């Protein structure tokens, strides 16, 4: 009998807790968690990738290398709507050229729009285990992701106004609960504990705080390492940080109905990948009277570059400032800090004038 697989998926924000849950509870297979993203992962990825590919490719490649170093023997890569769909094939080639021996399950091979092929993919990961079990774990993992997104968004909206400093502790505890969760009740307990603890903290929030909406490219906007902890930095300045772009909104809640129709003054058709959601979110923030928007994208990201002229018009029409941030494989946050401070000062001044 073949030894049990040791499966790994590259790091992606904090969502690895849910991926780990599916692999371990659903497929009863060991899941290797690659080390948290670091300067080393970035370097490893960038060194072995083509120059002009977008940064998530490099970051995930680095994470795969670190996963293999940590003892994984099977790597799973997900499909997607833009270049992401082609990540797997090229990354496998690069890893093989580097001399690693492993099984590679490239889900874009099975992403053909046919249910038959999706079932085939599940069989590959899990030839013997019951589909019912896998289905249930998938359902529970969806709940975990929903809770995770819920707590995360609550955290960044409020942690800038918490004088006691207990917010980060609660959030960290919640994350480790999620990584350790082995059943639905673990997930629910962790969520309940965190939300109660959040509710108990006394916040010192002004009546009309500066509110910033974050939009942007799927990977970079959700992965704190890749965006150099942008949300935390803004929150620390005393900003209410809102981000609608997360897995829950995008995949489980359909992201808001008829988004394309709502933004048709700016864009009649989808401009690729998650551009429609991005523009709708930007408009939504603007209509709700937010003070500013930050667009987060990785260098060479195609759809996000394409929506820049649209965002510029949206910014003009709604009179809302937009800060465009492009992330390459840089590892210093000094430049980012300067730009954020300037943006914050500008928003603060604007607000004073408006009052």
């Amino acid at each position, binding site marked *: 009998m073949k030894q049990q697989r040791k499966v790994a998926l590259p790091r992606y924000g904090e969502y690895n807790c849910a991926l780990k849950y599916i692999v371990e509870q659903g497929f009863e297979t060991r899941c290797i968690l690659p080390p948290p993203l670091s300067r080393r992962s970035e370097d490893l990825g960038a060194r072995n990738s083509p120059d002009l590919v977008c940064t998530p490719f490099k970051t995930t490649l680095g994470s795969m290398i670190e996963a293999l170093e940590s003892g994984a023997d099977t790597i799973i890569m997900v499909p997607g709507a833009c270049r992401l769909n*082609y990540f797997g094939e090229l990354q496998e080639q690069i890893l093989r050229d580097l001399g690693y021996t492993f099984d590679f399950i490239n889900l874009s091979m099975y992403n053909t729009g046919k249910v038959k092929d999706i079932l085939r993919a599940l069989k590959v990961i899990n030839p013997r285990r019951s589909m019912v079990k896998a289905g249930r774990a998938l359902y529970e993992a969806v709940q975990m992701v929903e809770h995770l997104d819920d707590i995360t968004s609550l955290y960044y909206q409020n942690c800038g106004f918490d004088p006691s400093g207990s917010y980060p502790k609660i959030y960290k505890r919640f994350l480790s609960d999620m990584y350790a969760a082995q059943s639905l009740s673990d997930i629910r307990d962790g969520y309940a504990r965190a939300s109660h603890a959040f509710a108990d903290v006394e916040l010192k929030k002004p009546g009309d705080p500066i509110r910033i909406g974050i939009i942007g490219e799927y990977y970079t906007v959700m992965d704190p390492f890749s965006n150099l902890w942008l949300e935390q930095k803004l929150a620390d300045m005393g900003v209410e940080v809102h981000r609608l772009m997360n897995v829950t909104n995008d995949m489980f809640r359909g992201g808001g109905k008829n988004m394309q129709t709502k933004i048709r003054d700016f864009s009649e*058709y*989808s401009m690729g990948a998650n551009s429609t959601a991005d523009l709708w979110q930007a408009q939504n923030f603007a209509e709700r009277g937010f003070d500013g928007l930050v667009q987060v994208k990785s260098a060479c990201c195609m759809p996000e570059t394409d929506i820049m002229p649209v965002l510029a018009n949206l910014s003009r029409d709604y009179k809302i400032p937009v800060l465009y941030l492009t992330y390459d494989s840089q590892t210093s946050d000094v430049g980012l800090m300067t730009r954020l401070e300037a943006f914050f000062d500008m928003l603060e001044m604007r607000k004073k004038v408006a009052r």
Partner: protein
Amino acid sequence: MIENKLPAVGIPRAMLYYRYGTLWERFFRVLGVSTVLSPPGSRGILETGTRLAPDEGCLSLKMFMGHVDALVGRCERIFIPRYSNYGYTELFCTRYEGLYDQAGNIFRSSAQRFITCNIDAQNGSPEPKAFERLGIELGFSARESRKAWREASKALDQQKKAEEHAQKELAGKPGMKVLIAGHSYILSDPYLGKPILDYLDAANVISLRADALEPETARKACARFSPTCRWLVSEEIVGGVLLWKDKADGIILTSAFPCGPDSMTNELLLRRLRGIPILTLVLDTQSGMAGIETRLESFLDIIRFQKGGLV
């Protein structure tokens, strides 16, 4: 048809024009719609485009916006088709998908009107349907539009067949041959790609083009080589490289800075092809040819050296 001083439709001579232009032009001609083409690509057009397009956009996007600018005010409506997909696994680069809306936003302050042809089979608008809708929007019946599309589509097929046939003859000729791969809007552009082809010509090298091949044949070859590559245009280029490479002494992979699909397919070709010299040329907004000439020259020397002619 409404009689008007201005031509009804303006077509930017950039991006997918070089791949599907025959189809569009023939479609409009059969219907009797007057068209105007933007002038051939030049340094001036690229400079205008660079000013208009987002800084981080690719060279071809900048060129495209320059062409659109050249048409503003010169026609009733500028034709920017939206090529999204032919089905779940037959996609296009997202850039072509956003061009129509992007141009609409960049040129919002001008009174210019735009017209599109939305090819998006996943959302109920496959190519025949899309052209039917385009015809109806221009004031023709569905029947007339369908007929025009059929004729235009046939013309495009014939053009591709003729290109393949002509290249087969070229490949049979004696002499050093280089296979040059890249998007047709790079290679056929008089400002971007033509200097490279001219240089090879002057050096007495026969240049074969990877995209001179029937698309279906090329796509099949690509599907065997790289199953998850789903950008139709890139598949045609990769398939072309695979099928023509045995006829050539070397391969030049061209790409526009920073082309998304090329950044990955070219890397895969570099990693998977063995036994043939390959040169990668990334074109950007720099205007001088000197750097490219040096690289081409040394590449040709390598090929000659390998063939034993340089000793």
